[in-house]
């Protein structure tokens, strides 16, 4: 449904998107994960024909984005990160307007508007001005506006930024439902947990480059099955820990930063009780002892050397 090969987007000497390639199958929910400024929005802008690519090729829903912008635009829905709505008008007025701009009219427009208002649970607030909506309501209406014309592919650019957990949950549930109904979704986010919850496959983008691409679980497996155990440790006890750790089959060295020791272990079930016993014997506190399973955060940290939210 989406096919990108060697996509490059430059602004003068700045390379916003650097030779990325990936594809998204029909009915798939694909996540593009990366921090702010990684190139996610630029990628969506090129795919939705808002920006021309500097190099490379992209085909969306069978239409070449460079040669058939109209064809692409008729088949896609875009939900931008900004609330792209007229806040001085009501919810229904907004949806009616966007529906009309996609060729809907008369009863079809009316029916679709009501459907969308119900889908995003704003039926009771249809006449209310958008400016009086909460952040979550605005986000839901923003999503509905992108769906008015029943697109084949939906581009969602960080659709949950700045809203509370409950509102986010509603939006994610709606996206999952839409995807289950057959809609192809390209979802960008810098929230790891959203990508983990929602997406079948993930592309990790950093500074314009695609640093990892594939099935979510496969990607995590690539960085290994090792858990990370961390606990508070005064620096003067580090030598003792290093001596003890030689029998634990660690992956890499013991790290010690800001009074905290981190160990990557292959056999957590065996090592963890030993650490607990050692800490107790040393009369060191146990309440900061943590075990981290490998996840997308670990993956991102591993790939870029930085945490995603840095």
């Amino acid at each position, binding site marked *: 449904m989406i096919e990108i090969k060697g996509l490059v987007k430059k602004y003068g000497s700045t390379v916003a998107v650097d030779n990325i390639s990936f594809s998204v199958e029909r009915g798939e929910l694909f996540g593009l994960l990366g921090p702010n400024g990684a190139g996610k929005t630029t990628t969506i802008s090129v795919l939705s*024909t*808002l920006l021309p690519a500097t190099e490379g090729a992209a085909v969306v829903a069978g239409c070449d984005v460079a040669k058939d912008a109209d064809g692409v635009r008729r088949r896609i829905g875009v939900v931008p990160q900004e609330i*792209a709505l007229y806040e*001085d008008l009501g919810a229904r007025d907004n949806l009616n*307007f966007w529906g009309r*701009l996609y060729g809907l009219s008369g009863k079809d427009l009316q029916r679709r508007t009501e459907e969308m208002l119900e889908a995003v649970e704003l039926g009771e607030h249809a006449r209310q001005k958008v400016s009086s909506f909460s952040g979550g309501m605005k986000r839901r209406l923003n999503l509905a506006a992108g769906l008015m014309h029943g697109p084949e592919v939906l581009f969602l650019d960080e659709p949950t930024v700045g809203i509370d957990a409950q509102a986010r949950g509603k939006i994610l549930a709606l996206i999952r439902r839409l995807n289950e109904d057959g809609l192809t979704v390209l979802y960008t986010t810098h929230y790891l947990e959203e990508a983990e919850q929602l997406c079948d496959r993930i592309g990790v983008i950093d500074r314009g480059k695609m640093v990892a691409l594939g099935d979510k679980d496969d990607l995590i497996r690539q960085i290994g099955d090792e858990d990370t155990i961390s606990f508070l440790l005064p620096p003067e006890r580090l030598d003792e820990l290093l001596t003890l750790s030689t029998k634990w089959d660690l992956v890499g060295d013991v790290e010690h930063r800001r009074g905290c020791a981190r160990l990557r272990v292959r056999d957590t079930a065996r090592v963890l009780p030993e650490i607990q016993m050692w800490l107790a014997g040393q009369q060191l506190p146990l309440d900061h002892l943590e075990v981290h399973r490998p996840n997308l955060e670990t993956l991102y940290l591993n790939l870029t050397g930085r945490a995603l939210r840095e």
Partner: protein
Amino acid sequence: MRLNPGLIWTIMRLRLKRVMADRANLIWLVAMPLVFSFIMGELMGNWSSGSSPQFTFIVYGAANGGEQLAEILAPLEDHEDFALVVRDTTASRASIRALLEESRVSGALLVGDGFADSLAAGLTPTVDFFHDSERGSSQRIRGAFEPVFAAAAVRISAQQLVDPAAAADDPGKATAFDVARYDSLVAAPRVRLDAEVLGRSREANLLLTDSRQHSGPSYTLMFILMFLLMGAKDLVQEQKQRTLDRLRLSWASTGDLVLGFFLSGMIVGAFQAVLLLGMNAAIFGIDYGPSPACLVLVMLLFVAVSSAAGLLLGTLSRSGGQADGLGMVLGLGLPALGGLWWPLEIVPPFMQSIGRALPTGQAITIFHDMIGRGWGIAESAPMLLGLTAWLVVLLALAVVFFRRAVNP
């Protein structure tokens, strides 16, 4: 360029809805211009000379007219619209024409030598009436004079129906009505009116009699320009909020978007123009002259120029604050330079030249000419062409920059 009228109308309707949704806009659309028209009109005072009537209707050769002429003119004395000035002396047709063309008088009547004698001898004397078909003041005189003259002519003719011999025997006795004689008198009336319609001179003095004839149109023009320039920030906001991106991704082409934005500005401006000009006419009694076509054309052109300027400003501004600031500078500067705050006639000649090169100066000059000289489209053609040139340039620039903004 592919255009879809349905989508253009949808965009226009949305923008109109947004303007109307914000009640604060009514202050700028209606209240402020009317208040300014009134205040500035009061400040500038009445431009007519004291309490005398506004226009002059002059009669030359009154000494030739005798009692019959006095009878004709009697109903026109103390007329509320014009002053009747009666001269016993006669004047040449050329000098009368000059008086009219220089706007020193608004209508003239020339009574030839031997008028009364000819009438007494049973002949048909003629009086010559001079008026200007495109000047409101002149037509008001004509409207008052012609019915009075027609009634007098019938009266004079009817006197011929009286049998002189019977009247000599018994003046109070009615005579038989002679139908054939009456018909011949109607076919050949005893007094004839020859009307001469004059052309206009571009050097003619402007005759504005009331400051509201200036402040009414000028504050209408100024607030239309200001409101449409202030709309520039809406376009900036559309870019920032990415509703413009959403519009670009819709089925509307760039041409649909440009026209939608431009025409919606025009509709708002036209609505404001109709409302304000109408209210100025109703409240302050402003007469915009004898050419409604010229009035419509100048307003359409000015509204279009203002809408194109707003669109251009919106595409060039990088922030709402910048659009607001530039809009305010232009919205106040162009009216000041163009003679909307005060008439261009009172500023030095070089400032008049600058003013008349600006759309504001061109529009108010057309208004002054319509109201004070009775000009129409033909006479105002140079200024109308000036406005058209502004429209073409501003709209072309707006389209180019808009395309650049939406198709980076």
